[in-house]
């Protein structure tokens, strides 16, 4: 399946080996906290893809929440503390 599709989409690239894909998928497995902690040797490709999508979505959500929180915090940095002065001098 994968070699047929890749031959259609990339004219210049030679056949992509299954080993390459397996190696990349295992690297992806190492990054994902859910699968890494479960310690099972064989995780299906579709499961890895699903966990990857969920993980990326959760990271996006966290960036969004942090941006919201920072927007509220940076609005009110008026205090006299040393940290406030540092942040003010860095960012504002």
């Amino acid at each position, binding site marked *: 399946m994968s070699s047929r599709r890749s031959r259609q989409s990339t004219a210049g690239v030679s056949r992509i080996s299954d080993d390459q894909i397996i190696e990349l998928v295992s690297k992806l497995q190492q990054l994902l906290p859910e699968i890494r902690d479960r310690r099972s040797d064989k995780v299906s490709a579709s499961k890895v893809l699903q966990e990857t999508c969920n993980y990326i979505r959760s990271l996006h959500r966290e960036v969004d929440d942090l941006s919201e929180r920072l927007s509220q915090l940076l609005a009110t940095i008026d205090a006299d*503390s040393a940290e406030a002065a540092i*942040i003010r001098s860095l960012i504002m």
Partner: protein
Amino acid sequence: MHLPHSTLKQEFVKKWIMGLQRCKFSNKKMSIFERKKAIKLSADTAMASARKGLTCWSRALISNPDRPVPTTTRRASSACKKIVKRSRRIRRTAKCGAARKGQITRSIAQCLVRKRTQILKSLIPGGEFMNEVCLIEETLDYITSLRVQVDVMRSLASASARASEPHN
């Protein structure tokens, strides 16, 4: 192409601070929503430019920073559920041996992988134009960069929270 975490972090912090300074937060007339958008935009731009043009997703993100968040997920996951239900029905009524069942399982797996690859393509900036190997490599890099971004933003948020506390 893969940088160590600390180098990437330093690059990101440097670029993000430059971007935040340009936002002029001292202007009190900014609404919280405008400020949030500015913070997010500068963080995304910093994250992408820290890769110095070496990855597809970073170039795509810089050229198109306001990508709408894809909402196709519910449709795709209900499509997957339909596929699994259909396969269970087929397996129950199949009178053939193990070979045919193996074939069905394999085609279900292939279908799931195809659907989930599509979802992943919609999540990575510029993903629609990538082949499978490129997609997975870009995903690895993108996830590493996102983690750095979250890390630094979290540190700034907790530092700002401490700085906002009344001085005892």
